[in-house]
């Protein structure tokens, strides 16, 4: 029975996220269009609402070009991995607050629930970068792809430590790795007010983790054509986008749960609060896209290793000290 429920949940999550990815592209084009005094998609359907469906259908019938020199098995594996691991991270994300059933059981709105949710999500996010790395390796010596992957590797080693260290402060305060327990610990005041530095560091690291502007170094269009995706076409390229957009959803949900109190909030029901916060983070991504210029990758490494890492270590020392002597952490 439990297995059946899990399979049904899994199918629903994958379907919902796939539709979400399609409309996330429409939403981004629309928002970025209005930010740049344009209209954005308008022709296909009402306000261009059918545009993402047309784009998806088109990508199914595109010719699938595989370079002669490509490492064939890895070339097939790379887009699959790039889409699989973000979905694997997304199954641990709750889609709504847990439901307390009449017979004392708790129904979780996530496919996979464990005591170590945060570590599981971090692990899957770490593995998601291998799709991009493999794409560069498999592309048969294409310089653009290879440079893109090289930058992704440099980016991964810089942001991953910051991501984990920034999450460590709320974990220390909640005494748990369980997402529900962390939300529970924020009933009175959200952790963003206790840990403003950790929140800023997390937002910077999460943008680097999803490789979006201003840290979209692996696919910097003006220099690298499409970076690691240069040699991929049709549905294979679409899978990379799937991975990226699902990852944006995962880190947005994680940020709203860990720092903004998840489904806690006044007046409105928890479900509504939770989704307002997630959508705010997704809007933040588009906003940054329309605002910031791109950083060079040595600049990103400087930010991560020379500014954020010492700051986070000091922050953890302070949090630990304050918790040990019983001060309110601020």
């Amino acid at each position: 029975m439990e297995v059946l429920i899990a399979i049904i949940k899994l199918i629903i999550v994958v379907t919902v996220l796939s539709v979400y990815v399609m409309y996330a592209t429409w939403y981004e084009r629309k928002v970025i269009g209005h930010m740049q005094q344009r209209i954005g998609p308008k022709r296909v359907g009402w306000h261009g609402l059918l545009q993402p469906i047309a784009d998806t259908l088109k990508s199914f019938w595109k010719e699938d070009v595989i370079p002669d020199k490509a490492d064939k098995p890895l070339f097939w594996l790379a887009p699959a991995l790039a889409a699989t691991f973000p979905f694997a991270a997304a199954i641990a994300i709750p889609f709504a607050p847990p439901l307390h059933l009449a017979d004392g059981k708790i129904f979780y709105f996530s496919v996979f629930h464990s005591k170590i949710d945060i570590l599981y999500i971090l692990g899957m996010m770490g593995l998601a970068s291998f799709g991009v790395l493999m794409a560069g390796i498999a592309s048969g010596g294409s310089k653009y792809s290879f440079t893109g992957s090289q930058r992704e590797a440099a980016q991964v080693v810089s942001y991953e430590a910051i991501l984990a260290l920034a999450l460590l402060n709320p974990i220390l305060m909640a005494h748990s790795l369980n997402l529900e327990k962390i939300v529970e610990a924020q009933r009175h005041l959200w952790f963003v007010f206790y840990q403003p530095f950790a929140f800023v560091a997390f937002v910077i690291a999460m943008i680097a983790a999803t490789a979006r502007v201003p840290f979209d170094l692996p696919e910097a269009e003006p220099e690298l054509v499409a970076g690691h995706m240069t040699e991929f076409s049709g549905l294979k390229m679409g899978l990379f986008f799937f991975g990226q957009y699902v990852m944006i959803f995962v880190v947005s949900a994680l940020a709203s749960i860990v720092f903004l109190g998840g489904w806690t909030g006044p007046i409105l029901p928890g479900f509504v609060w939770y989704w307002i916060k997630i959508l705010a983070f997704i809007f933040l991504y588009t906003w940054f896209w329309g605002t910031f210029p791109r950083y060079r990758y040595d600049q990103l490494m400087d930010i991560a290793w020379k500014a954020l890492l010492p700051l986070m270590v000091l922050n953890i020392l302070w949090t630990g000290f304050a918790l040990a002597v019983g001060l309110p952490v601020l």
Partner: protein
Amino acid sequence: MEGIMFYIISIITVGGALGVLLSRNPYRAAMWMIFSFFGIAGLFVMLHAQFNAMLQIIVYAGAIAVMIVLVMMVMDKRTLESIKRFNPQAFWPALIGIALLADLSFLAYKFKINVGNAGKHLTINGSNTQMIGEILFKHYLLPFEVTAIILLVALIGAVVLTKKDIS
């Protein structure tokens, strides 16, 4: 059921390790290594040590493997290709390998390991995050700190050695 899962995970682990040894392309060897780490994480999950399993994935598959790939990517391509993956001195290592295999099979025979029990009764009660923290930071605090300092010394040593080379 546990037996089947155990065998699948062991095949992933051992197969990944064999892939590391036998593939000619160094990048593919790195990918096989991640596969093997994945299997090891699976073994930890079977032991109900989920914390260790996730650390295995985050630290080894997520960070160290990326580091190895990064080093290979920034290396000169010709240097990388000129490194020989195999050499003709396979005889002695093979002998050591056979001796090790014989040793392990002898132990398995002597302690009468029942193959039918594969994957069962593996659970260690309470091997979770809190237990690990308590054991590390209450009972073994001094060795833990000494290990940390040794690692720091190694880190600084590596920096000093490479700096000397450049000047």
